[in-house]
């Protein structure tokens, strides 16, 4: 099978960041064809006019960066910020799960709906369009097939995730994008219905689906498949699995306080790491928001130069033109910060994903503790029973039991009574041994499969975060280049004064 066939056409993510379906444009084919080229070459030819048309939300990077401005030329590798981020998704896709071989998935649009909620009140909510289509190479010049679509709202995504959490407790379940905007710098809206927030959430939801679809275990789940393909019947199907019962017990157990006698050192270390990561990423996001605020201030104040140069140029003869043009460049400079910070939100989102991942990691560690604890309890219980039996047989009373006391008080029990008791205990011990065996097996199996997933996760995390850092560095370079450009232009104007 052509490996190119299951590379997710990344352009779908980018091309749909505005709110109109733009599937059938020629852009799709050219961009798709180009996405299949070597990763290192940014070669798309969409003109800047097209770019304007497609960038409704305005903040996402096109895989196309026709202008050389955004290309960081380092050694022989030309790479744009968008490409770097795409690399993360490429990595996901390269795993080549069976599901992804069959279909392409993306969250294409967001739409507002109003309806009655459970308490019969009107509410406004957003729904997201999930598109799936068979993964296959389109021959040159042909139109891609129309996708299957269905609408889902955020709460349904939450339901799916809860189901996965309960069904696969040994897997680190990918997180959903945040429900409410947090870590915002002041210009960014914290309003859930704000179009920029909705847009970033759309991307986050798509990312979630792709993460699940590229997971070696999760991608095979039927409920997940139905989520992507069955709009109406899905809710029933999920509830039918009876996972709700497990949810309650899971919640109870995860929050319970218990102490494991012999904790697995690896899990302890992992939990600690996860907590540290959580703390440090939170801190990073907070400080970054403050940095963004300040940077905003610096840039915007420069806009005042634009105004005063313009006013000053009015009283000058020879200097006037130079000043006036320089003033315009100052305005450009001041305006440039909006795009710069919008782009940086990408990076913040990538960090947030891993922040939320730490919760999932923690859950797995807790689940392991729980299983370990239950095993220890069973072992203890079994030992207790064996001891009881021994005492019965030897007649020594080391363990207090009511029966024992009453028999002492009211006379020795008969041989028959004793034998039946021993038999009952034997039965209980036998069952107990079975249980311990089973629990042991369960525990080992959990540890094995969990640790497999943890190794996979670690690798993924290292790669993804490295990519995120690269793309952040590229953003910084781009920002520097813009700054140099603007000030060079201004300098030219000053020289003409």
């Amino acid at each position: 099978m052509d490996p190119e066939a299951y590379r997710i056409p990344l352009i779908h993510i980018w091309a749909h960041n505005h709110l109109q379906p733009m599937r059938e444009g020629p852009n799709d084919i050219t961009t798709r064809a180009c996405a299949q080229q070597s990763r290192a070459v940014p070669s798309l030819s969409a003109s800047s006019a097209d770019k304007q048309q497609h960038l409704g939300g305005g903040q996402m990077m096109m895989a196309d960066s026709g202008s050389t401005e955004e290309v960081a030329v380092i050694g022989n590798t030309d790479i744009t910020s968008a490409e770097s981020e795409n690399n993360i998704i490429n990595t996901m896709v390269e795993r080549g799960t069976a599901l992804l071989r069959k279909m392409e998935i993306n969250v294409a649009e967001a739409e507002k709906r109003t309806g009655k909620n459970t308490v019969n009140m009107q509410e406004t909510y957003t729904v997201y369009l999930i598109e799936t289509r068979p993964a296959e190479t389109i021959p040159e010049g042909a139109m891609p097939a129309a996708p299957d679509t269905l609408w889902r709202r955020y709460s349904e995504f939450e339901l799916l995730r809860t189901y996965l959490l309960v069904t696969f407790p040994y897997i680190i379940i990918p997180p959903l994008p945040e429900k409410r905007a947090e870590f915002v710098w002041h210009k960014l809206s914290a309003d859930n219905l704000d179009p920029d927030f909705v847009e970033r959430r759309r991307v986050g939801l798509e990312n979630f689906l792709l993460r699940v679809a590229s997971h070696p275990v999760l991608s095979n789940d039927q409920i997940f498949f139905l989520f992507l393909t069955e709009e109406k019947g899905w809710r029933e199907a999920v509830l039918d699995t009876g996972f709700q019962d497990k949810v309650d017990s899971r919640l109870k157990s995860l929050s319970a306080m218990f102490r494991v006698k012999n904790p697995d050192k690896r899990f302890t270390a992992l939990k600690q790491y996860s907590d540290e990561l959580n703390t440090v990423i939170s801190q990073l996001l907070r400080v970054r928001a403050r940095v963004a605020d300040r940077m905003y201030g610096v840039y915007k104040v420069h806009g005042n130069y634009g105004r005063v140069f313009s006013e000053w140029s009015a009283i000058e003869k020879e200097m006037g033109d130079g000043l006036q043009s320089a003033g315009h460049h100052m305005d450009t400079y001041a305006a440039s910060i909006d795009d710069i910070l919008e782009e940086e939100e990408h990076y913040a989102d990538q960090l947030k994903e891993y922040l939320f991942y730490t919760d999932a990691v923690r859950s797995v560690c807790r689940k392991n503790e729980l299983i370990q604890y239950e095993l220890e309890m069973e072992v203890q219980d079994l030992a207790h029973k064996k001891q009881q039996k021994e005492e019965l047989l030897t007649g020594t009373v080391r363990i207090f039991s009511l029966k024992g006391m009453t028999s002492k008080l009211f006379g020795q029990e008969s041989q028959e009574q004793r034998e039946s008791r021993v038999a009952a205990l034997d039965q209980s011990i036998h069952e107990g041994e079975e249980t311990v065996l089973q629990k042991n097996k369960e525990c080992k199996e959990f540890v094995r499969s969990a640790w497999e997933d943890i190794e996979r996760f670690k690798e993924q995390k290292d790669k993804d975060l490295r990519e995120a850092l690269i793309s952040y560095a590229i953003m910084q370079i781009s920002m520097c280049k813009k700054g140099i450009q603007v000030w060079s232009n201004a300098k030219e104007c000053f020289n003409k004064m």
Partner: protein
Amino acid sequence: MARQLRLSSPASASSLFNRLQLDDDLEADVRDLYASTETRDLFVTVDDPKKHVSTMETYITYRVSTKTTRIEFDLPEYCVRRRYQDFDWLRIKLEDSQPTHLIPPLPEKFVMKGVVDRFSEEFVETRMKALDKFLKRVADHPVLSFNPHLNAFLSVKDLNKRQGLALLTKVGESVKHVAGGYKLRARPAEFCAMGEYLDTFSQKLGTIDRIAQRILKEQSEYLTELREYGTVYSSWATSEEELQRPLEGVASCVKTCCGALEDQSESMSQDFLPVLREYVLYIESMKNVLRKRDQTQAEYEGRLEAAILRKQEDRTPMPVEVEKCQDKVECFNADLKADWERWQSNKRQDFKQLLTGMADRNINHYEKCQAAWESLITLLQDKQTEDKTSETN
């Protein structure tokens, strides 16, 4: 040419010759003033600040070096030490002896003792640059540069003796110019325009000063946050293995950017703002000269009126003072226009330099940051290709 040449300037042979050559075309005069200064024969520099501690006071002196071929000077080179108060003396002397000319400004005399450290490196450096500028402007001026007080300033070893009556004379002389309450009738349009221009220009410079200060403030706050930002990456690096180097790399980049920004801010504070402020002072000086001109004209008009009345009464001829006043006005106007032109020209150069300097500083800052991030990417991507090759092996 009936007009008398100004008495205060023993012009050099060449410039004198030039002036005699021309007819009354003022513009030609102005052009020639430029020509004479382009063939420079007087070079001055202010540098080498040194602190002097005596029982009475502590002060700074600067080395004033002169190189010249002018015959008005006995030697071709001089090297003397001067303190601020000496510059101030010179300025006062120039103002008094050349009332019709624009004298360049000095940096602020008084600084609030608690607020500014008069002996800090930055303050001294900034002040020295302003004094150097002052002296160069005087030396470049076709009339002022021939002033005997300047000569003394540049050549005499010990100025103190000469300074004795400086303060007293300052008061005395300036009183002369507050001429007996004459009111100006009609200011010529060109001088009105100059006044208006100066007012607006002064205003705009004030605004630019405020903006620059605000930017510095915002940058300072940004820098604080940015520093913390860098340390969080370092802290994160300690709990990672594979990601340790990349995260350290980011932390280091951020630190470099902080340094670059600090340099830029300091530079703006030391080079940009002082020059801007000094121009505001320059504008004030120019306004003063305009006022003096107005006074001179007013005096002339007043005397003329009085003389005309008297003439009508008893037929006495036009008194000599009135003619002298008329001369004064015409000379003043001519000097002022010439000075205005050169002031405008210098202003253009100065601001070109100032603003391109600002642009350069910003470019420089971004270049440093860009270089840092680019080297980080190389580091990160090298590791990537390393990983890939080890994977495929």
